[in-house]
């Protein structure tokens, strides 16, 4: 199998994961104006599913301990190593595990989104944002401390469904390309959603909630559905990330990386606009990779650790976008209900009738 240079792979990987999470955020924030400050919740749910479920099923199938012992760090390494050896020789089972886990993560992520509907129907604006943020942190605290789930502070190893193609660079290439494929599917789905009648309803509710409900749109149902869709997509991203990194420690999933950064990408590209999101995530991924690549030469010029430079840069991007270009790089355009030609034809016909 072909191997791509690591830098290119890193860009593809970060771009794909960023795109999936940000698209899911945009469906909730951009299309419906829900202040989703708890994206971490669904992402972490997906990661927990990937770390806790497929390994246990395979362990039970192979006759290994799969209960609370599975997540105990002294056993976990050995168990996962045995499972990985088996997965290595069994491409079908590997792919099956991968697809099954992603579907399961999407289902459970959707369920989490459904649970979030409870506060989302009762609270607004800052209150809702803070509540969702608290939910994400709450799940992180539980996963970080409750050992039988995903090993608590010791973490667990995650079974590796990418390993069957080979080790090292080959695995990296396969994983990055697979994630890129998922990202494209998610992007196309979000684009279709934006153009569908449902997408137009979302934007109608966003722009004039009262008017939409006067026209008979069930606001509660729409909010719930949107949260479910957003939650499932974000959970897929979490599961993919856990599979790729090969280990799972709850504390590495922070609100900064999985909630605030996607917000920054979204605002940079253009809220409510899928193409803008794509551009925002791409620009950010490129500049981040550049910072990491040129770490040495940057520190030679300015005596600042590049890690802190990254924080300052993201902060400046957010502030600058909010102040000077609130619509983002590519502003949202109204989506048309029919293709342009058909609309033109209909208009001409109407003119003739007059």
């Amino acid at each position: 199998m072909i191997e791509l240079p690591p830098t290119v792979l890193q860009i593809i990987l970060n771009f794909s994961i960023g795109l999936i999470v940000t698209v899911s955020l945009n469906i909730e924030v951009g299309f419906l104006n829900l202040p989703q400050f708890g994206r971490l919740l669904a992402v972490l749910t997906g990661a927990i599913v990937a770390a806790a479920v497929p390994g246990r099923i395979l362990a039970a199938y192979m006759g290994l301990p799969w209960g609370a012992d599975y997540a105990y760090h002294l056993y976990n390494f050995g168990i996962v190593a045995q499972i990985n050896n088996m997965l290595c020789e069994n491409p079908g089972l590997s792919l099956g595990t991968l697809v099954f886990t992603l579907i399961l993560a999407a289902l459970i992520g959707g369920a989490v989104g459904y649970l979030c509907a409870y506060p989302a129907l009762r609270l607004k604006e800052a209150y809702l944002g803070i509540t969702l943020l608290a939910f994400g942190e709450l799940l992180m605290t539980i996963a970080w401390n409750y050992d039988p789930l995903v090993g608590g502070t010791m973490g667990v190893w995650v079974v590796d469904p990418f390993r069957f193609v080979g080790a090292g660079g080959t695995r990296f290439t396969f994983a990055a390309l697979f994630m890129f494929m998922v990202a494209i599917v998610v992007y196309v789905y979000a684009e279709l959603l934006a153009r569908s009648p449902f997408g137009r309803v979302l934007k109608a509710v966003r722009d004039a909630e009262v008017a939409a409900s006067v026209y008979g749109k069930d606001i509660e149902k729409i909010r719930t559905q949107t949260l479910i869709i957003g939650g499932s997509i974000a959970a897929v991203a979490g599961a993919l990330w856990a599979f790729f990194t090969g280990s799972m420690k709850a504390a590495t999933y922070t609100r900064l990386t999985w909630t605030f950064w996607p917000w920054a990408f979204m605002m940079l590209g253009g809220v409510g606009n899928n193409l803008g999101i794509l551009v925002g995530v791409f620009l950010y991924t490129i500049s981040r990779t550049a910072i990491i690549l040129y770490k040495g030469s940057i520190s030679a010029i300015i005596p600042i650790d590049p890690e802190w430079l990254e924080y300052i840069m993201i902060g400046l991007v957010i502030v600058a976008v909010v102040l000077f270009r609130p619509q983002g790089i590519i502003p949202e355009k109204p989506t048309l209900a029919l293709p342009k030609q058909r609309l033109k034809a209909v208009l001409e016909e109407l003119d003739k009738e007059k």
Partner: protein
Amino acid sequence: MNNLLDLLIKAIAYSSCIGIGAASITLIYNATKTFNFAHASLVGWGMYIVFALTCLIGYTPYHHLLSAALFCGLLGGIIYLSVNRRLLKAKAKEVTLMMSTLGVDLILFGFLNVFSDYLLRVHRLPAKYFIFETRDIAVSLGPTSIRLVGLVAPLVLVLVVVILHLFLTKTKLGISMRAAIENPELASLSGINPELTYAIAWLIGGALAGLSGGLLTLVVTGYTAAGMTMVVSFFAGSIVGGLYSIYGALLGGFLVGVGEYLGVSVIATGVGGWIYAYRPAIPLLVMAITLLVQPRGLAILWGGRR
């Protein structure tokens, strides 16, 4: 017995700090409708100002509390002038205001780390992690002795209540500030400049955040992300207080702190020590429950907004 007293002192000190910080969030939210995420880094800066001055100049951490408050107050003022004012003029939405402070928070956090690196490299101070509890002064009370922060922190909390109360009810500026918060249009018709009010809210809010951070150096381990870790407790305090009442925030923050420190110990005697690990979950739970059950929070106790 001594252990229990120590725990109690620490709980009171910590809770007072959370109360002071929560008041900052509430004050800024009321005046400008901005839910201030930058609070995290303001608290962090408060901690590091006290740390740096104590190590470089000397004296006790208490001597440098005012400097921390002043510095963070200025930071608050700068945030208002550079970011918040423009957005308020453009009538930005609440979520946009919130996002803008998040951007500011990341910038402040970046520079805080740069500052910490500077202290480490140039002055050889242990700026990654520092523990100031050992530098606290012991006050002997009869047979036992307690740490001074157990007295100073609640005293500062009370002082903040009194000064804020006097400022808001007795001074012309404070009264006009309340008027501008209640109804900006009407207030500006009667000659009050709402922009001045917003600026003062950010100044006082920043100063309170810095004060709370400075005091916290004596209670918790200092590191650059300490503010980020604790910010949820501050949010919880502000929300339990009702988000519209400054006194509510002071009380709410205090209660959240007590719940976090003492509540966990009380539960632990019943169910066992494993519960200690879940301490960070307490403010989150308290906050989520308050929001869902009674979003007006403690403010219902006195029936009004303020």
